[in-house]
């Protein structure tokens, strides 16, 4: 062991000396670093722990995975985008949220200098990836349905709060546009409903009641789980056409699924790259939260 340590210190010293001399070339230093790492592992023992990326990261940070469309892939651009995303996340807290969660976004507007606006609504859709990731918030204000599209990494966004963290039964909630207004009405002064730490994100299995036809989309064809009364408004012809439009073979079309996703090995590589940074940011957020919990009560007993 002692001999090992001695050899290591010697070799490390040599490497550092080498580094100091050759500062203009990156390649030999990289090689030296690569050579140094396994030696250190030998010294510390066989139980070297690598950063293990939790499995839920792909749900929490889906925008870190690139677009699976091969023609649009560019590994260098993707990597640079990831660095930019981490930079932005260091500036602003972008919490975990899902379609169906209720958010409050505070943003500034170039046409109203020095002012900010806060919009509360339910997230009905998440799309795009990388720096272009965006989500749609919906609320009913003064009997008027309002939807705002926010880009997650938009620098004009000043604060994103998750008022209620939950999921719904469907992947996107566009059917709220055709539902009764009470299902997308949320109080602007809603308070944050905090979840227990480590608890799984609850799934809200609420069934939405739709208005009568005409609808914006043919909801009867989409096999929605979160809608209660589709049967009430459709006729036999709709039933027949929706049956015809079904694609039951798609769940067996393996290559289609493969082309729509990023393979596991690649996902691991990507998340291993950003994991440590995201983890430290998460810990920081938790610490801040704990500080925030000691707030003076509003109503005194």
């Amino acid at each position, binding site marked *: 062991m002692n001999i090992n340590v001695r050899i290591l210190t010697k070799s490390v010293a040599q490497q550092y000396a080498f580094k100091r001399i050759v500062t203009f070339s990156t390649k030999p230093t990289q090689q030296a670093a690569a050579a140094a790492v396994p030696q250190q592992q030998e010294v510390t023992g066989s139980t070297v722990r690598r950063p293990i990326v939790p499995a839920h990261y792909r749900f929490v940070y889906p925008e870190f995975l690139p*677009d699976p469309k091969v023609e649009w892939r560019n590994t260098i651009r993707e990597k640079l985008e990831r660095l930019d995303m981490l930079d932005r996340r260091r500036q602003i807290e972008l919490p975990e949220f899902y379609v169906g969660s209720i958010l409050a976004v505070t943003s500034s507007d170039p046409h109203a200098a020095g002012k900010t606006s806060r919009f509360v609504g339910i997230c009905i859709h998440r799309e795009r990836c990388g720096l*272009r990731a965006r989500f749609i918030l919906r609320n009913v204000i003064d009997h008027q349905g309002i939807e705002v599209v926010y880009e997650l990494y938009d620098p004009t966004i000043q604060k994103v709060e998750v008022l209620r963290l939950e999921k719904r039964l469907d992947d996107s909630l566009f059917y709220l546009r055709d539902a009764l207004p009470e299902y997308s009405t949320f109080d602007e002064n809603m308070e944050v409903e905090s979840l227990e730490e480590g608890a799984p994100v609850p799934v809200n299995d609420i069934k939405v009641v739709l208005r009568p036809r005409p609808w914006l989309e043919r909801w009867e064809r989409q096999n929605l789980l979160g809608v209660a009364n589709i049967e009430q408004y459709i006729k036999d012809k709709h039933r027949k056409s929706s049956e015809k439009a079904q694609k039951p*073979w798609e769940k067996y079309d393996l290559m289609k699924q493969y082309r729509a*996703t990023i393979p596991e090995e690649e996902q691991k590589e990507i998340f291993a790259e950003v994991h440590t940074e995201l983890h430290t940011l998460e810990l920081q957020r938790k610490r801040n939260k704990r500080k925030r919990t000691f707030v003076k009560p509003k109503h005194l007993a």
Partner: protein
Amino acid sequence: MNQADVSKLISQLRIAVRPNKRHLKNVDGPEGRLLKLRKTVTALVKHERIELFYNRADEARGYAELLISNAIRHGDRHKATMELADYWLLEKQLVHKLFKVLVPRYENSNISYTRMFKAPRDYPGIFYRKSVLELRGNPFPVLTPDNSQNRNLLHNVLLDEARKEFRREKLANLANKLAAETENATPSTPAQVPVTEQPEQSEEAPKA
């Protein structure tokens, strides 16, 4: 820009995948296309080596690879994988073959499970390209030519030269040893001199 679908985890394929699917013209649309490919995948699992048109083979190859990789990943206790196998293998005894023969065969492999070759097309005939699709580790004789005995290949040339050199060295050692022995036997006559002189003489002879 779409988000990647993260609901399922799929292992990376070890083959080159085209960015888009081939439609494989079929009157029944996508369902008919899949039926065509199911027949191909079933035949591949059953016979382990099949000859067919290139496009269809290339399309079916990805499905066969994913079917095997899913079977390896989830095993036969996983309901969704069992449904997949039931859909893709039209002959049901092949489901047993998939889980009991192919999964153990490929469990520890780090290359693709299938292999594809371009095959010659018959003339005059249908103009489509043909190919041979096979599972790795099948019991049939290999299709690739065996180049290990080709004397003109570089590695064989080098091996031959090395062999020759080794033999030469051995002979030289033997000669030296013999010379040393003779020297020991008759210490009065120098043994090494004639050995070195002999080649000189032989060299001089042709010159003269």
